[in-house]
């Protein structure tokens, strides 16, 4: 919402300077977004007189002017056809910036002739569209005086942000009322007394859907002449960035901004029969005043006559009955439309008009009569003519209601004690009627505040005028009952998991929660309930069923930038359904290339499924998963390489993580060159340690007897899972064996074609006595027998 300081002062008697007004506006909830002053832009521009105008020696269309700027006479080369000796206009000296195009003037030569500064057109100064010639001022214009002063342009334009509850501040009068309530001046009253009608209103209005349009005031005015509006009005509108059109249109725009009262003027001679205000039916259409055609569905509040729809009530008038320069007889409308009906219609039709903006927030129904009377007065003043009676169809809705206020609530909610007399004073100045009723106040809301709902709203009204800066900050009191504080176990787990991943060289990314449905379909059957109806683009239309695809495409983008080694992870939700249970928290990572850069001492390694496995295992142990109890099985989902991937699970069902090489087909579908490896940790599946166990880790038990290590190499079938061999060794004597480490895998000459050799180091830790050589030998043969029996392995 924009307004000028001078316009505000038509309603507010104040001596306050602009910065004080600005601070107060913001302090009472009418946030000032910008203040501009056209005079600032035009400060260097002065009125100058052309003393001589002669031809340019080298250009037919240019003239060489001698210009008196009031301080000096200088030479200006000018292309305007109307430049002539004796003309007075707006002169921009060298150094000035033309406000409309940002051009900074410098002394120059035009076709060899020196030129200093410029005589300006209206368009160059942002005063109008005229660019056919330079500004031609009356002969009595004072040379040397600032152009902005001469034109009386020193008038700041204030733009404020309007919150949806402040329908009253969509008119400058309402803004003045708020400022007056806040002590910044006195509200002035304008004469809006009725204009007596001289004949009976001939235009009949029928309200067929009173729920959408409950009241409609109309008046016929005949014999008018719709010329341009007077300069004072044009100037007002231009200052707010509006284009003056004609007296009738300008008057309606004036009242819209002045008192938040939209009106409409029909060309009465174009109306056919009675006006019927009703809800539209599908198939109806209208060419509106913006020259756009609108096809209507059911439920839009429309103004109709015998010809069909002639206006969108409260949104925009129709072209067929619009006023033209030749319009003689008019029908003036001031009505009230249901905010929700207007909001829905405006949104459906995509029309943002000043009328819609106000009606959907709630126009004060009590401005209907003053509005139509004041508009009539202005029309008669500017266009002449003769006004009929006013006919009011229907009944205005009652906005005012009584809301009780316990004065103590201001302090109890607001934290600042405001005296009851101040509360009553503030509310009264805002237009509320306050009556004491026992120990509470009965507050009647004004017709322009349909947003006031209850006591808390009244507390806000008092506080915003009293001043939010009066609220003293106060430390939070102790909770009235003991409550949980801090991170819960899952939140701590997430924190640890992320930081462990980062500690392993993975960089955390945050990618969209959505992705193209074709990509989603690579990881899960596409569920219609997880595809957005209104995605921002078709590339972001499906909720991610998995974290990997976005990481894989991110890897691809980084490869395009020249990165060969990529290590990314993300922790976030993935979606299996649209219910809260379908959302699950996962940490996934992706790697490509090598584990590091080339180095003179230690060559980097290619990342492979084992790198991903190591990532998964490290993060799982960091977050307390009992990884020693988990199984690693070569069963991973379809998006992994079937031979190079696995699952880490507890028992047959509880999956903690997947890892492995990404299936080449996935890489191909996502257009990312592999091989890529990845892992997914299903953070919610890891059991928490049982509560009640406390944090005790139990005593450390060490043995005083010497540990013994023995190495074994077994030749086994090529397909035997190493885990089976380790298990066979370990179970030989669970008590005695403290560690089994697999340290070599060999395939090649010396062993069978379908065989491999696995070498293990076994550490024995006795707890009651030192082992004898004989006992160690016995243990070794037991290991060999066990491996032979359980894995078919033979000592190499």
């Amino acid at each position, binding site marked *: 919402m924009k307004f000028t300081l001078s316009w505000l002062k038509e309603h507010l008697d104040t001596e306050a300077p602009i910065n004080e007004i600005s601070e107060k506006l*913001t302090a009472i*909830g009418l*946030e000032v977004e910008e203040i501009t002053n056209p005079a600032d832009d035009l400060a260097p521009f002065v009125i100058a007189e052309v003393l001589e105008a002669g031809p340019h020696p080298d250009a037919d269309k240019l003239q060489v002017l001698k210009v008196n700027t009031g301080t000096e006479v200088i030479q200006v080369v000018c292309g305007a056809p109307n430049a002539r000796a004796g003309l007075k206009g707006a002169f921009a000296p060298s150094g000035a910036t033309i406000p409309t195009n940002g051009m900074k003037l410098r002394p120059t030569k035009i076709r060899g002739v020196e030129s200093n500064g410029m005589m300006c057109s209206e368009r160059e100064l942002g005063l109008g569209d005229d660019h056919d010639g330079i500004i031609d001022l009356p002969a009595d214009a004072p040379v040397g005086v600032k152009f902005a002063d001469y034109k009386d342009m020193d008038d700041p334009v204030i733009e404020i942000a309007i*919150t*949806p509850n402040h329908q009253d501040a969509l008119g400058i009068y309402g803004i003045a009322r708020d400022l007056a309530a806040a002590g910044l001046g006195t509200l002035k009253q304008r004469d809006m007394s009725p204009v007596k009608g001289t004949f009976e209103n001939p235009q009949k209005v029928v309200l067929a859907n009173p729920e959408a349009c409950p009241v409609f005031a109309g008046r016929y005015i005949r014999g008018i002449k719709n010329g341009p509006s007077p300069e004072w009005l044009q100037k007002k509108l231009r200052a707010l960035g509006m284009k003056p059109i004609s007296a009738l249109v300008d008057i309606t725009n004036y009242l819209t901004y002045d008192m938040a009262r939209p009106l409409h003027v029909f060309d009465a001679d174009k109306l056919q029969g009675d006006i019927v205000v009703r809800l539209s039916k599908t198939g109806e259409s209208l060419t509106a005043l913006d020259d756009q055609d609108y096809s209507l569905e059911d439920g839009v509040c429309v103004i109709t006559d015998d010809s069909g729809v002639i206006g969108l009530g409260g949104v925009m008038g129709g072209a067929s009955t619009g006023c033209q320069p030749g319009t003689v007889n008019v029908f003036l409308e001031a009505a009230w439309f249901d905010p929700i009906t207007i909001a*829905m219609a405006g*949104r459906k039709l995509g029309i943002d008009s000043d009328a819609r903006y106000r009606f*959907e927030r709630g126009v004060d129904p009590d401005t209907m009569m003053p509005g139509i009377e004041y508009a009539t007065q202005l029309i008669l003043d500017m266009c002449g003519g003769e006004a009929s009676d006013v006919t009011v169809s229907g009944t205005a809705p009652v906005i005012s209601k009584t809301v009780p206020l316990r004065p103590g609530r201001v302090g109890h*909610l*607001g*934290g600042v004690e405001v005296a009851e007399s101040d509360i009553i004073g503030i509310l009264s100045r805002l237009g509320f009627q306050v009556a004491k009723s026992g120990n509470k106040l009965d507050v009647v809301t004004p017709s322009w505040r349909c947003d006031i709902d*209850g006591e*808390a709203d009244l507390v*806000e009204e008092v*506080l915003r005028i009293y001043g*939010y*800066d009066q609220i003293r900050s*106060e*430390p*939070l*009191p102790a909770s*009235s009952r003991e*409550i949980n*504080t*801090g991170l*819960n176990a899952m*939140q701590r787990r997430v924190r640890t998991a*992320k*930081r462990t991943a*980062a*500690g392993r*060289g993975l960089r*955390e*990314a*945050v*990618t*969209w*929660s959505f992705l193209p449905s074709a990509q989603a379909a690579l990881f899960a059957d596409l569920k219609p*309930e997880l*595809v957005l*109806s*209104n995605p*921002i683009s078709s590339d972001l239309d499906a909720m991610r069923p998995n974290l990997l695809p*976005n*990481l894989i495409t*991110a890897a691809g*983008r*980084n490869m395009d*930038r020249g*990165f060969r080694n990529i*290590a*990314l992870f993300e*922790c*976030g939700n993935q*979606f299996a359904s649209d*219910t*809260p249970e379908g*959302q699950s928290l996962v940490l996934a990572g992706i790697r490509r290339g090598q*584990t590091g850069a080339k180095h*003179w001492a230690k060559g980097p390694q290619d990342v492979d499924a084992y790198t991903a496995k190591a990532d998964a295992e490290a993060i799982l142990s960091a977050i307390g998963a009992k990884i020693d109890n988990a199984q690693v099985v070569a069963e991973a989902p379809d998006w992994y390489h079937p031979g190079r991937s696995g699952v880490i699970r507890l028992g047959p069902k509880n999956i903690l993580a997947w890892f492995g090489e990404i299936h080449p087909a996935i890489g191909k579908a996502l257009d990312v060159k592999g091989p890529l490896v990845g892992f997914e940790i299903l953070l919610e599946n890891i059991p928490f340690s049982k509560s009640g166990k406390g944090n005790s880790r139990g005593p450390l038990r060490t043995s005083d007897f010497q540990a013994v290590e023995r190495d074994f190499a077994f030749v086994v079938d090529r397909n035997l899972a190493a885990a089976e061999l380790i298990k066979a060794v370990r179970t030989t004597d669970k008590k005695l064996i403290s560690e089994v480490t697999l340290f070599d895998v060999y395939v090649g000459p010396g062993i069978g074609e379908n065989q491999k050799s696995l070498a293990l180091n076994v550490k024995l830790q006795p707890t009651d006595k030192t082992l004898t050589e004989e006992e160690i030998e016995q243990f070794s043969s037991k290991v060999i027998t066990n491996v032979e029996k359980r894995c078919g392995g033979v000592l190499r």
Partner: protein
Amino acid sequence: MEDLQRLETEIISAIVACDDLGGLEELRVAEVGKKGRVSLLMRKLGKMSPDEKKEFGPKLNGLKNRIIDGITAQKTNLEQQELNRRLLSEKIDITLPTPPENMGSIHPITQVMDEVAEIFTEIGFSIAEGPEIEEDFYNFTALNIPAEHPARQMHDTFYFPEDAEGNRKLLRTHTSPVQIRTMMSGPPPYRIIAPGRTYRCDSDATHTPMFHQVEALVIDKDIHMGHLKWCIEEFCRKFFELDDVKIRFRPSYFPFTEPSAEVDIGCAFKDGEILIGEGDDWLEIMGCGMVNPRVLENVNLDPDEYQGFAFGMGLDRIAMLKWGIPDLRDFFAADLRWLKHYGFAALDIPSLSTQGGGNELRERGGSSSPKGDRPPMNKKGNK
């Protein structure tokens, strides 16, 4: 006797002259070994008279000890010389680069969430979370945003298709539904923050379809706007690491709070950068207010018994402000160059036990300005 004196002089000279450990050992065997010269002299003691024994015994013993001491000292000396020679030959080029550490990093969003969590848990809050795919009731209706209220248009909502009953789920437009779910899950009091992903159907230079918010909710018997103000001041002071922070509360409107306010923080706009804690300009950083009695009624709380406040802010936005990150869209691009420049070390876990609240403070040598530690990254470089 003179013989012994001469012998000693001879042996000691030989020891001192010896310049290798092997030679020294040979000398030891030849003089004090089992059949060494000195040992043989000592054997003769057995055949001497008691008087002679008394005279020669101590002399011979003294001689033997001095020789052994001499050999030991020379051995140490020679060993030291040999070690010095070896060390000199073992020189490496210490300017050769070390093997690269594969540095990972934490995204600024995680870092800012952890910082915010640290600040609020310290003053007694817990952290609440909820679904990102929400129902209309939790995201709008319960928050006093009826279907056709203009306020609903402020939220450009992503919707899912209608189900058989005509209901459509949506992506939460704010984390406020978590407040509703919290209040419906058990009795007051509540003291929570709700951080998380939020979504709006909006995309331009300063908006992304996904972003992050954190909201706070405090409901108890006598909570008022003064407490709200304190909480926000505490937060700003700790988060922006400023002893004195200028905060302005401005009346505003949100359907779910009444009275409502927007919070501006004092700043300066200099050369396209925002400097928090300096200058006379204001920057809006969050919305807040006392929870609207309608919202309390919607979750079956009695507004005459319970009241409290809520506030919410953009996590991405405060991260941008704190660390001088210019473009929101880059947060979600997973560009390794950006992640490296703006990311945090794995162990850089925010902690309030450091003075001023953050690690950057120490790195900057105690400057109280939160700016300048992460200049905008230069995208030209590739790796």
